[in-house]
């Protein structure tokens, strides 16, 4: 038997007895798919919220700490022993 014949024979074996389609398949798929979609929406919302909270925290910190202002120069050390 050459290759095409062997492949055709294997294909015939595989094509025997197709399984019957379960009746509630579409409803099941829509239920599960809807769950996946809702989970995705929730995750996306949570990530946006986290990003927003991070930006807010950084802004508040920057406004209170003012890291861009030059720190006041140190005074001369106090003189001791005079």
């Amino acid at each position, binding site marked *: 038997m050459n290759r095409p014949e062997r492949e055709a024979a294997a294909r015939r074996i595989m094509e025997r007895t197709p399984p019957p389609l379960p009746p509630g398949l579409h409803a099941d798929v829509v239920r599960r798919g809807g*769950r996946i979609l809702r989970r995705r929406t929730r995750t996306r919302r949570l990530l946006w919220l986290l990003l927003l909270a991070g930006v807010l925290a950084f802004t508040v910190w920057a406004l209170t700490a003012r890291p861009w202002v030059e720190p006041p120069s140190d005074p001369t050390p106090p003189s001791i022993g005079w």
Partner: protein
Amino acid sequence: MRERHASQAARQAREFESFVAGAGGRLLHTATLLTAEAPDDNPRARRLLTLSLAHTYASWDRLRGEDPYDRTRRYLATRFAHGAWYRYGVLGIGRRARVHPASALAVLTAQERLILVLRLYEGVAEEQAASLLGLPVERVHAICDRATATLLHPPRRPAPAVAEAKVAPS
């Protein structure tokens, strides 16, 4: 605006329903061949199919011209490949533990079934099957050849378990 949105959603729902009705039978056959279950008793294949179709449903409005059948089949194949090593054993150890003897592909390992079904039953090209499974093309070719040979000339099985059970008590 809202009305247009609603009508578009209804149209997509109809399209998806007809897609499931049209492709479900063939995909279920593919899944049943992969899990090597009996055609009329295939809970694992049904679960695999439901999960794959649910993923297609979740990305239905972002397909952008991609073939939904191909997408579902890719998800089904990769999901089976990832789950196969612990469900069906590694390197042939305990590989027939969960395989139904009524299945056409009961003599093959999970990887052989996957490649044979993708290549011959689904008609996926060798290169695509190889990139999907992360294997070299030569290896897919060799496994497909070996699986075809095993399927057409199954090795002699060890004595059936039923006969042993009958002999043991006497």
